[in-house]
């Protein structure tokens, strides 16, 4: 099944909506709680990334009997150096965002830690696509 969510830029109050909905679905499918936890943490990180860093974007989750595949696409600004962004502690977050408790530079590394497969493609000035998959 397919689940889609629009994620608005700067709307921290709503960050977490997609992960909550997906979490509920995975529980109804009786996926192993430990696996759910990993996926949910990854999705939540990715959601916050779009809220904090992008001009807004979209999340699509595809769930079948033995895996979940999540694609997040935003409409810019893009990541200048993806390799650098994948390093723990690297952050371009503004002071306001950091003051809210986000932007510690753990987002992308944390997604990688909690997923089986992950891929980031980005073009500066165009946008970023984060894709990941976890097996149940």
């Amino acid at each position: 099944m397919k689940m889609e969510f629009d994620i608005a830029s700067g709307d921290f109050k709503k960050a977490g909506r997609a992960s909550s909905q997906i979490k509920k679905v995975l529980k109804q499918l009786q996926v192993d709680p430990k696996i759910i936890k990993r996926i949910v943490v990854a999705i939540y990180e990715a959601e916050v990334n779009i809220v904090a860093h992008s001009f807004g974007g979209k999340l699509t989750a595809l769930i079948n009997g033995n895996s979940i595949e999540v694609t997040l696409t935003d409409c810019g600004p893009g990541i200048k150096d993806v390799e650098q962004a994948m390093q723990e502690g690297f952050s371009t977050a503004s002071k306001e965002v950091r003051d809210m408790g986000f932007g510690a530079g753990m987002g992308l590394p944390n997604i990688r830690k909690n997923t089986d497969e992950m891929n980031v493609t980005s073009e500066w000035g165009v946008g970023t696509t984060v894709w990941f998959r976890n097996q149940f």
Partner: protein
Amino acid sequence: METGEKYHAIKVDTEKCMGCTHCMKTCPTEAIRIREGVANINPDRCVDCGNCLRVCPVDAFYMDHDALDQLQNYKYRVALFSSVMIGQFPEAYSEGSIYEALLKLGFTHIFEVEQPIQLLIDSIREQVDAAESKPLISSFCPAIVRLIRYRYPSLIDNLVLVNAPHDLAAAYALQLLTKEGARREEIGIFYISPCSAKMAAVKRPLGEKESIVDGLINMNDLYSQIMKVISKKEEQDTSCCRDQLTHDGIVWSLPRGEARHFKRKSMAVDGIHNVVKILERMENDDIPELDFLELKSCHQGCAGGILLTGNRFLTVERLQKRAKRYPVTKDCPITNCNVQDLKDKLKINPIQPDYVFALDSDRMKALEKLQKVERILCQLPGIDCAACGAPNCHALAEDMVQGKAKMSDCIFLQNRYLNENKITLARATKNLEKAWGKNRFDADCNKRGGRNEGF
């Protein structure tokens, strides 16, 4: 672990229940449906939190409990209760006079369950220190433990594996009485419960072993009984019954009563709907770094227990004042009993998750059902009116895919089907009767429904 139907404290008096939607709408696990005009509790989902009792406009929910005449069956009659019981009484009555009233009512021994609290604190601290994944979550409130087992299975390993104060106190009381020469069958331990969740927990403790409590008394009932015999003048000195009681013990069941032992690396949340929000965040790894998380189902902790008579804020206030008159725990170690034996009694086996919200144990079938739910939802009006007998449109759709409801149970769809001549008026009426009972269309002055607070 659990055999047959789960034990539940909360029951519905079908004579009193007039069939409204208040309980169903407030239930944190969507465990209630209305069938044939009365509330029906799904025992697999109910966590015994008691929110249904709070909102019921006609007091249709009740709990099985024992009457005081049960005391006659025992030579040694022990009253076990949490300190919040004392906190309910107006200042005019001293704790001594409350104890005296309990003796007048026929009890021979009185124990506030928080007496051996230091043992509990030590055990929790040991577990917190050894824990790999923090914060540890308090297992004090039985409604919360059940909620986590059903709705937050990924957090189950964070629960502190320790018995509740009443289990510990019951073991302590038994030990002291046995030392006095009493035989087990002569001892009647009566637990005076502040809430439905504790009642269920006492009847069927975690790990499902036999309960050591011989009788359950409703704190509400006992309050009324005490008020009949209590006197403002103290004649007897009962302070020896309280020589183990401490400041830490008295405030244990209040908000931050447990968490305060972990200082700033702790957080306390009360009210089950607030607890749900925190557990959701904890699943996202989105809470600050903490050692200990105290979660209590009732607002103001056990002072807000549904079986208390007194106002919760006044109870908290009185208990805090009372606690100041007692020493903190560390100055007052337990000396008169076998501490090791009590420590062994504290331990419980790991708690197992219970996947009551899974749509099907077969994942492919569950996935199909989920997609069906999504399709059904497009047909439903989404106003969550509950006129179908389910708490909201989503719950109705889930009932449908489980074969427990049908499309025409929705009154909006019913109307559409009538207009399209797909069903007859007789059929539609029958559908409504299925949820709301046969005479629901008749005038009846007793069925006025409730209103919001303050109206």
